[in-house]
């Protein structure tokens, strides 16, 4: 076993090395120019294609696509989605099927080996940065004129500032992200509402109220840890620290960024040294100290936290819409039938009512080789239609009228009675994702709230209604880095992150007293934070001078 691991490790190391070599070898490719002549690459493309048009290639075409096979709905080549897509657009998807468990690794190998399919979906920013220097992926920002729906959605929803964060040092972006009209904040805490009722408590609205609520629960049930949390792998306290950080105006847990923009000084500062970061730690340390937050929350596996909740040893836990419906409620129904569980509105803190979710999500990279295909324009139109047009998004999510959904008299969509998805039609014998291939994470990102929330329960739609009324969190100005800078930052970033995370946990768990905060700040300086923050500010200034808005 050991031997195999060592060999794997050596292989990975060697591959990284060879990738870097390949990157340096190819970085001198020619720049594509704006307004270049694409007339030789229009075979199959529509002459006139604009917002609201149904895309249909003028001849039957095939595009290779990286296809993540989700364990919960493994890829099937006879999905109605694929057949219907071909019927509507004249495009056949030629899939390179990759198990979801190791998607990113194989994506890296295929791109590195020059064998990548044309369309590479499900890429999370900033993963694309690793491939930019190799010249293997297309600077899509040069070609968005071919994508009317994408342009329209960016303009209509004013997504330009968010999109700017995706730009590399050359001012281009290489990833077409999923575009949301409204930020979609899914994660928050869930609480046992029956316990709240029993103790005569209201749903907490702020983190201070969360504290008093947990305290009241602890008083009533001294043996419990009222909050025992999950989502701690691989980032300890990933969700909880993230949520509290947002409320205090900093970034931790999942949302951790080494540098955060300070709007008052108009400069980036070191996140781990922010006074807000300290306040966040103090709040969580207080919860742990008073026995309100299970210290194991930061290390335990999700299942352990689920078990504590199911056994009535805890009453609150991090959640998203799915885990609430698919896990907590069914668990509790079997163990404590009288229990009731629901999401609480994302608690607010000193920053007030903000909605922290980004309006961009994972997106599509395009292989540079696709640019040389005579069908390039048709492919861009196809991508634009399927991922960015209202009709395409509706199709990928809802499927085919009469088969997977029906419209009622008011034009509202409804699942057909025999089709089930996320437990909405428990009696349905066919599954929207498994049997038909619709609502597939590879093809469904973002869109109008009606589409995003199509399969949300009534209570979740209510939750989103309140969340949507909150103002979106301000976006940091972009600071695109050059290749050398990015390499340098990578060297600083990881030790800094490890240090901040480790010390954060020690502060929260009370292993290190808060009085040592100043000593911690000094230790932080030893992690090159000054050079790091200077470099980021320099890059931000450089971008600002180059792109005065």
């Amino acid at each position, binding site marked *: 076993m050991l031997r195999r691991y060592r060999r794997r490790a050596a292989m990975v190391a*060697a591959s990284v090395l*060879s990738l870097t070599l390949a990157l340096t070898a190819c970085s001198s490719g020619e720049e594509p120019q704006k307004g270049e002549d694409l007339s030789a690459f229009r075979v199959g493309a529509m002459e006139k294609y604009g917002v609201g048009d149904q895309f249909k290639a003028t001849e039957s075409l095939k595009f290779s696509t990286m296809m993540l096979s989700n364990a919960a709905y493994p890829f099937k080549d006879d999905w109605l989605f694929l057949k219907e897509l071909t019927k509507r657009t004249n495009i056949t998807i030629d899939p390179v*099927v990759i198990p979801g468990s190791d998607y990113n690794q194989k994506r890296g190998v295929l791109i590195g080996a020059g*064998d990548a399919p044309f369309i590479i979906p499900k890429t999370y920013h900033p993963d694309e940065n690793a491939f930019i220097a190799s010249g293997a992926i297309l600077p899509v920002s040069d070609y968005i004129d071919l994508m009317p729906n994408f342009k329209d959605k960016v303009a209509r929803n004013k997504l330009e500032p968010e999109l700017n964060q995706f730009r590399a040092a050359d001012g281009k972006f290489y990833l077409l992200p999923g575009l949301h009209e409204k930020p979609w904040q899914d994660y928050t805490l869930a609480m046992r509402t029956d316990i709240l009722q029993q103790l005569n408590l209201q749903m907490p609205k702020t983190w201070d109220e969360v504290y008093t609520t947990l305290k009241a629960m602890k008083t009533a049930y001294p043996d419990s840890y009222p909050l025992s949390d999950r*989502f701690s792998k691989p980032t300890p306290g990933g969700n909880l620290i993230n949520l509290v950080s947002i409320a205090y105006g900093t970034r931790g847990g*999942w949302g951790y960024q080494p540098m955060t923009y300070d709007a008052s000084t108009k400069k980036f500062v070191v996140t781990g040294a922010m006074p807000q970061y300290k306040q966040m730690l103090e709040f969580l340390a207080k919860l742990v100290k008073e026995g309100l937050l299970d210290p194991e929350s930061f290390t335990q596996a999700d299942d352990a936290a689920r078990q504590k909740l199911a056994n009535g040893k805890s009453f609150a836990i991090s959640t*998203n819409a*799915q885990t609430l419906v698919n896990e907590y409620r069914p668990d509790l129904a079997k163990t404590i039938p009288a229990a009731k569980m629901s999401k609480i509105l994302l608690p607010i803190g000193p920053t007030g009512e903000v909605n922290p979710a980004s309006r961009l999500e994972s997106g599509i990279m395009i292989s540079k080789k696709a640019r040389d295909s005579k069908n390039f324009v048709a492919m861009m139109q196809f991508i634009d239609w399927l991922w960015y047009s209202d009709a395409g998004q509706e199709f990928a999510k809802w499927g085919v009228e009469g088969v997977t959904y029906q419209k009622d008299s008011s034009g509202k969509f409804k699942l057909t009675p025999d089709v089930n998805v996320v437990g909405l039609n428990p009696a349905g014998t066919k599954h929207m*994702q498994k049997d038909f291939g619709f609502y597939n994470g590879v093809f469904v990102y973002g869109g109008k709230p009606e589409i995003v929330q199509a399969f949300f329960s009534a209570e979740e739609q209510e939750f989103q209604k309140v969340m949507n009324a909150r103002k979106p969190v301000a976006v940091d100005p972009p600071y695109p880095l050059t290749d050398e800078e990015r390499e340098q930052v990578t060297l600083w970033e990881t030790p800094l992150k490890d240090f901040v995370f480790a010390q954060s946990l020690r502060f929260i768990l009370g292993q290190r007293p808060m009085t040592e905060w100043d000593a911690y700040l000094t230790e932080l300086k030893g992690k090159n934070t000054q050079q790091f923050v200077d470099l980021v500010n320099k890059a931000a200034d450089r971008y600002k001078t180059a792109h005065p808005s």
Partner: protein
Amino acid sequence: MIVAEARESVVQHRTGPRRARPTRGYRVFQVVNAVILTGVVVATLYPFVNIVARSFSEEHYLIMGEVNLVPRGFSTAAYKYVTADPMFWTNYRNTVVYTVVSTFIAIVLTTTYAYVLSKKHLRGRGVLIGVAMLTLFFNGGLIPNYVLVSNLGLTNSIWAIALPNAISVFNLLVMKAFFESLPVELEEAAAVDGLSTYGILWRIVLPLSKAVVATMVLFYAVSFWNSWFSAFLYMDQQDLWPVTMYLRNLIAGATGTDMTAGTIAEGDQLQVAATIQSVTIVLTVLPILLVYPFIQRYFVSGVMIGAVKG
């Protein structure tokens, strides 16, 4: 020391009735041995029994963490569910085919290579050993390997799994050492009686090497059965995957590699039940586990005892 003593006592025990009782030292050794080995057995068996118990339990007992060694709420529903998936059986068949073919190729190549290397009089033997040893320390790397295999046109075929892994240098060296320990007189005698080189290998050396060949079959078969990485790299179609990839996607994929910053794509949040995972583990492990008892008899007695007298 204890071991040496023990061996001596075994020999004496077998040869003469004069000292039928084992020495005290040997008995102490036996007790210590038994205690340690029992510990090892428990430590290795427990997780497996636990998985079997989980596979036969009802989901909510797993959620509550109440399943240990005995299934709770006995149910075979998960078995029915897994075995009803045609893709599971397709991948299962692939694993069997890949393992049998790859092991066969690996055994043939390793045996012949090792036999050649064991001959001290072979010219260029140092180079041949060096070539093998080099791959033990240096490696082309993931992407060059991929480029090589795909340019040879091996992707999406069994050869992408069988050929690059056909010779494990570790196994090669074990076999070479074994062949070197064979008494050279046997082969000389065979040569005098008129056997060719291949005849000697086939009729004399291999029959005497059942123990090492059995070991190698086991090593190779287990490693091919368990491997998923080559298939993951070189297979782009689901119906070519081995069952280990099916399993890996089920377990690792379900916990989600996409958990970045809380942005999970909407369609991806389905969970695979813990019982389903357990059932798949049991069904995947079982066949290779059953191979052990059949091969074990070759390990029990040394084939070489009494082959050369005088």
